C-alpha cells in the first residue's frame, strides 16, 4: 500500500525491545491516512499493544520513531495527546467514581473535553450515570471508556483491543457506536483486535501484524480483491493453514480456486508470519 501524503499515524523503523530482551516490534514502517477505521490484527504477543502504546507515548521506541499527526509523542507528548483519544485494553475505571464523575474527571484533566457529547452517547445506551465505574458490566465499562475517548473530540482514536472481553452483543454495540462516531466526526480510528469478523463489519483498512512486523497493510476491499484461495499446494502461496475439515488451504495473491474471506486472508498472513519466524 502506497504511503499517504499526510499520514496521521506514522511509524518509521520502529523497534521495541523489552528488558527481558524480547523484541515486541522488529522494524515497523507504517503510515495511516486520515479518516476511517483501520483494524490492527494479529495474534497475542504480535506487538499490537506495544505499537499503539508507542503512539500514545507509553512505550519509548528502542529504535526508529513514531509520529501522531506529525508530532513525536516523546518530544512533545502534550501536543501529541491533544490529537489522541485512547481506549485501553481493559477499560479500567475508578473504583470510587460514578460514570458522571468520570466525565467530570475528564473535564478537569482536559478542559476541551465535550462532556455533553460523551454523556449523550452514554445516555443513548442507557448506561446509568450515577453507577460506580466498577459496578458496570464489561460492555458498559468499555462503552464508558469509548465515550471518554470520543468526548475528547480528538481527531485520532486509538483502541487497544477493547473488544477482547466483550460478549458478541456488546461487541456489536461497541462497534456501532465507534463507526457512527468516526463517520459523523470524520475522525481516524485504529482498532486492534484478534476477532476478524468484527473487523470486516466496521473497518475500512487492515493491518496484519505478526512477530513484531507488518505482514499486510491494505484496505479491506483491496485485501479481499487481491487474494484468493487454492486447495492445491502453490509455491507462490502467501501462507497455508488447516481448514476445519482437515484439508490444507493456501492463500495466494491473484486468482485461484475461489475468492478468499477476510478471515482467510488474515490467517494466511499470520501463517506466513509464523513460518518466517520459525525460519529466522
Amino acid at each position, binding site marked *: 500500500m502506497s504511503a499517504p501524503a499526510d499520514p496521521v499515524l506514522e511509524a518509521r523503523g520502529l523497534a521495541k525491545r523489552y528488558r527481558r530482551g524480547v523484541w515486541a516490534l522488529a522494524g515497523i514502517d507504517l503510515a495511516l491516512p486520515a479518516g476511517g477505521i483501520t483494524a490492527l490484527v494479529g495474534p497475542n504477543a504480535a506487538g499490537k499493544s506495544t505499537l499503539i502504546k508507542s503512539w500514545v507515548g507509553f512505550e519509548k521506541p528502542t529504535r526508529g520513531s513514531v509520529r501522531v499527526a506529525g508530532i513525536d509523542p516523546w518530544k512533545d507528548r502534550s501536543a501529541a495527546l491533544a490529537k489522541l483519544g485512547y481506549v485501553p485494553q481493559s477499560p479500567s475505571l475508578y473504583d*470510587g467514581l460514578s460514570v458522571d464523575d468520570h466525565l*467530570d474527571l475528564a473535564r478537569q484533566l*482536559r478542559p476541551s473535553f465535550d462532556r455533553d457529547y460523551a454523556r449523550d452517547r452514554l445516555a443513548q445506551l442507557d448506561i446509568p450515570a450515577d453507577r460506580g465505574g466498577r459496578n458496570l458490566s464489561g460492555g458498559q465499562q468499555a462503552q464508558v471508556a469509548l465515550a471518554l475517548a470520543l468526548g475528547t473530540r480528538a481527531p485520532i482514536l486509538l483502541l487497544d483491543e477493547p473488544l477482547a472481553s466483550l460478549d458478541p452483543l456488546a461487541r456489536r454495540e461497541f462497534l456501532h457506536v465507534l463507526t457512527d462516531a468516526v463517520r459523523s466526526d470524520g475522525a481516524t480510528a485504529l482498532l486492534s483486535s484478534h476477532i476478524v469478523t468484527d473487523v470486516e463489519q466496521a473497518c475500512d483498512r487492515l493491518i496484519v501484524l505478526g512477530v513484531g512486523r507488518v505482514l499486510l497493510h491494505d484496505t479491506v476491499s483491496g485485501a479481499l480483491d487481491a487474494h484468493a484461495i487454492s486447495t492445491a499446494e502453490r509455491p507462490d502461496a502467501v501462507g497455508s493453514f488447516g481448514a476445519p475439515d482437515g484439508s490444507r488451504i493456501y492463500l495466494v495473491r491473484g486468482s485461484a480456486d475461489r475468492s478468499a474471506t477476510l478471515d482467510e486472508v488474515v490467517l494466511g498472513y499470520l501463517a506466513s508470519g509464523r513460518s518466517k519466524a520459525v525460519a529466522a
Partner: protein
Amino acid sequence: MSGALTWARLSFAQQRWEILILGLGVVVAIGLMAWMTSQLLGITAAYPECDFFLDEDQFALPAGCDQASQAFFGLYSNAEIFLRNGWLFGFGVGLIVGVPLVARDIEQGTAQLAWTLGRSRTRWLLLRIAFGVLVTVVLLAGLAVMTDLLGAAMQPNDDLGRSFHFEGNRGMIIVARGILALGIGVLVGAMLGRQLPALLLGLVVTGLMYGAVTFVVHRWNESEAVEAFYDQNLGAPLFVGSGVRLASGERRSMAEFYGDGNEAFQSDDGQLFATAADAEAQRDPIGQEYILVIPGERYPEIMARGSLVTVGAGALLMVGAAMVTSRRRPT
C-alpha cells in the same frame, strides 16, 4: 474555584477510605489529648498553691498538694506517652495519603485513562499532590495545635513558645513531617507502581530520610549553639552537644577527652580535676565540662527552620516523583 472543588471531590472519592480512617484516628487522638489537657489544666487551676515541679520542696507542699501531685503526674505520664509517640501520626498520615496518589492508578490501570485524558502528567500529579498536601495539612494541623496545648498543660511553669520542652513532639513540625512522608510515599509509589510494596519500602525510606533530615538540622543547630555550663539556669534550651574545655582553652569532645585515658574528678559545677584532693580543694582545674545549647527563646525560629528543611526535603521528593511519573509506563 468550582474546578478546584470538583477536583477535591473527585480526589476524595478516590481515597475516601484511607482519609476517613485516618480522620477518625486523628479525631480520637485529638479528643483524648483534649481530655488530658483539660484534666491537667483543671488540677493546676484547682491547686494554684501547689508547684508540682519543685522536687526538693515536695515535702513542704501545702496540704492537699500530695494528692493533687499524684493525680497530676499520673495524667502526665499517660500524656507523655501520647506526646512522645505523636510524631508517628505525622509520618503515618503522610505515607498513607501519599503512597496511593500514583501507585493506585498504576496498580488498578486507571493511569492509562488519566494520563491520556490529561495532556500533562506533571499537571495531573501536581493536582493529585495538592490534594494530598491539603488532606495531610488538615488532618495534622489540629493534631499539631493539640500537642502544643497538651505540652503547655504538662509544663504549666514554662512558656512553651520559648522552650524546647517536648521539642520535635509538638507543634507544626508534625505537619512538616507529614509533608516529608507524603513526598516519600508519592515517589516510592510512582517508582514501584504497587501500593503494599510501596508502603513497606516507604516505611524504610521514611526512617532513612528522617535520620538524614535530623542529621542536617542537628549540624545546623550545632553551628549556632552557645557554650553553657551545667550549673547555669538554662530554662529549657535545646541540647545539641557537650565537651570539655581544657585549662588551655582548647575544646575536646567527651570521647576525645576520656578516650585519651584521662581520668578526672568532677566538682558539682562541672569543673574537672586530676585528683580527688584537687577537686575537694577546688585547686588546679584541668578543664571544665560544658554543654552546647540553643537558648529557649530561639524555639520558634529553630522549629520553623527545621520544619522548612523537612518540608523542603518533601518537596524535592515530590519533584523526583514528577520526574519518575513523566517517564514511566502506566502499568
